[in-house]
């Protein structure tokens, strides 16, 4: 075989088959979602799976995970991770409830948001300033946030008496539609547009795709990581306040363990744990899929222990699929 010109040879066909492959991997989440939905509809239809109340309940149970999964898409796409979100959600729910008790609804909301901002800044500073890997920073923060919320609340639930807060943050319905669906949609639309259409989103993807390349291209990668961790903590705080509204209390257990569901949702949706790739729509679908599976497993009469096992197996499957492309 004669020498091929090195620069032009491997182009078109390789790219085509590659993009088909990666599209296939990206699209499997949608196929999977539909397949699981149909499977439950057939097997659990008689147990009320398809009832509109059940379907709307899935939305109610998934909305907080979905909101946090949108932010997690950014964190993972930037090549970082945030394990503190579940604990931050609990802390923000307590902060909002206690703030509301002391200074009214607006003050309570501000307290919740400030919690997210503060934790995000600390996570960001430790990760980008000192250079502690975000895995460790946020793992430590998980304990700290939980400890603080247990301490300030005395491990007791703090009731929220404002009906308007409870309606707006999670408890209310607009006609038959739960307000939580609008929160989820708002997070999805904003998250999608920013990631796909703004320079910030592009720089997040570049930072996670190759930090060296991004830095050499002039992107302040530390600033990007800092902001991404703030976004994540703020989303966790909002999710915590939604929990608080839904259950009309602030409690340190709210959101406990959500980080795993959230990361699973993002990875299921095609976001790479190694950075550089991620879609917000995928993460939302991933979150809904987890909600769907949880709901189906409950309706099917599985015990909590069995649900945990099933969920773990699904996460492993998702990661296995997302990794395949790198093995060459």
């Amino acid at each position, binding site marked *: 075989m004669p*020498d091929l010109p*090195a*620069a*032009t040879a491997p182009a078109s066909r390789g790219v085509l088959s590659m993009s088909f492959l990666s599209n296939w991997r990206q699209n499997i989440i949608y196929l999977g979602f539909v397949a699981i939905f149909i499977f439950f509809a057939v097997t659990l239809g008689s147990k009320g799976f398809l009832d509109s109340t059940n379907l709307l309940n899935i939305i109610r149970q998934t909305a907080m995970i979905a909101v946090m999964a949108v932010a997690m898409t950014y964190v993972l796409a930037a090549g970082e991770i945030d394990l503190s979100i579940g604990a931050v959600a609990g802390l923000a729910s307590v902060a909002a409830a206690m703030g509301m008790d002391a200074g009214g609804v607006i003050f309570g909301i501000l307290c919740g948001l400030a919690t997210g901002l503060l934790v995000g800044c600390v996570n960001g500073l430790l990760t980008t300033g000192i250079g502690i890997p975000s895995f460790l920073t946020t793992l430590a923060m998980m304990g700290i946030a939980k400890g603080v919320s247990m301490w300030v609340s005395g491990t007791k639930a703090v009731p929220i008496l404002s009906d308007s807060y409870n309606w707006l943050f999670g408890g209310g319905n607009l006609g038959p539609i739960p307000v939580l669906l609008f929160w989820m949609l708002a997070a999805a639309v904003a998250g999608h547009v920013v990631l796909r259409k703004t320079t910030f989103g592009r720089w997040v*993807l570049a930072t996670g795709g190759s930090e060296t390349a991004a830095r*050499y291209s002039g992107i302040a990668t530390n600033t990007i990581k800092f902001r991404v961790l703030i976004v994540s903590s703020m989303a966790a705080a909002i999710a915590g306040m939604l929990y608080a509204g839904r259950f009309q209390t602030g409690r340190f257990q709210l959101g406990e363990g959500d980080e795993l569901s959230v990361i699973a949702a993002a990875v299921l949706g095609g976001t790479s744990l190694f950075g*550089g790739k991620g879609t917000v729509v995928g993460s939302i679908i991933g979150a809904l899929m987890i909600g769907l599976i949880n709901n189906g497993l409950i309706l099917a009469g599985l015990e909590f222990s069995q649900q945990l096992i099933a969920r773990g197996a699904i996460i492993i499957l998702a990661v296995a699929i997302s990794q395949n492309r790198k093995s060459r």
Partner: protein
Amino acid sequence: MTSPADSVPAVRMAGVSKSFGGVRALDNVDLDVKAGEIHALLGGNGAGKSTVLKILRGVYRPDAGTVEVLGHKLSEHTPDESTRAGIAMIFQEMSLVPTLTVAQNIFLKQEIPDAFGFVDDKEAVRRSRVLFKSLDVDVDPLALADDLGAGQRQLTEIVKAISRKAKVLILDEPSTALSAHDVEKLFAFLRKLKTEGVGIIYVSHRMDEIMRIADRATIFRDGKHVLTAPIKDLTLETIIENVVGRQSRGLSGITREDTRQDKVLVELRGVSGIHKPKDVNLKIHAGEVIGIAGLLGSGRSAIARLLFGIDRLASGQILLDGKPVRIKLPADAIGLGVALIPEDRLRQGVVLDHSVADNLALSIFDRISAWGFVKKKSFDDLAQKHISGLKVKTTSAQSPVRNLSGGNQQKVVLGKWLASNPSVIILDEPTAGIDIGSKSEIVMLVRELARQGKGILMISSELNELLSACDRIIVMSDGRVARDIDRNSLDDPERKGDDLQFAERQLQKNLQEVRTHA
């Protein structure tokens, strides 16, 4: 070409020095690049070229001296400041994000806004097409950077730099992955940029390219400025002479006794890889050191990768001790007594936080253990034997390898492999990034291994090191063995002056010739 004397130089570096941990990388150097010229930057490994480039790009801050770009003095020394000053640099495959498309990469950090202020990817694709067309090359702007071949990636890097409308364009070995055809296109484009007044700094080991494209050249050696002259006043001989210099840096004293035995340890028959190498025939005898020389991209590491089972054999036959073998994995190679000491020793060679003794024993724990327990005595003996045999400078066998100097770390890597007693040893850039003293010690060690009857294949871009270690030197070009040179034939027949230096010039000339003839 005459350039008006009053025009502001594109780059002016004056009295610039830079040290790394006590080692002087740059010593009071000057560099002047005019607007509208192509200025070649020449020098061997460690001459300081890449330090100069990184200072210009704002990656390093100079310890002393000034850097002016178009009359504007740099003060912050950050990549951002360099970009603002108008400097763009083509890195060796470093600035592309694999997960973004070609067009997204080209316009990274200078995204085009649409009417709503959002990123306009369609426009980026359109403009990328125009840019590729102006270079007359074919790269799909919608392809992922990860899916590009090496040549296309390099072209994308070039287009990315050009798209920044730089006033100063730095190209660091831009042609290594390009076909001859694409190099012509690149040159045509550089000439066009030149007429637009862009100052271009061109770094390459390929002298034929330098002679064709550059207007002036600056030569560095050992961190010092040697000369700056118009290229038409320079010949290949004068360039090589100045790049090589007069001293051979402590390697000339090493004797090479002929230890070659009749036994052939390794034989390659018509061996080809998927891309490289192509049709290689080679014999390594016991007690023989064979060097592989070649410019970047010539495929000099490819033989080693095949022999060690990292790359797949496409055709041909590998014989060890006269018997045909199949090496599919590094584990196969190790089992057959082949050891590879990799270039990237920090990542592949040693566990930095483990002790010297642990690292030495790492690959042969099974041989010094009984019932799963390590035999303390064998373990200590092994460590002591290698620490003294290799002259590893360490406070104790228990100190972590991290605390050792680069040269001593490399000796630990060597010791680790020697512990498994291989018959064939492949060394890939064994002295990369280590000091002169350790360099000659490692070369002496290689000779000692040959004396013990090992067959050694040594890949290096440091010619003086090949010349002082090897019995034969193979010159690679485009994946083929272009020349097979007896080391002694490179000596100065009249035996005057520094012999090693003469030989280095001869070998350098060989390297450039095979490239011109290719």
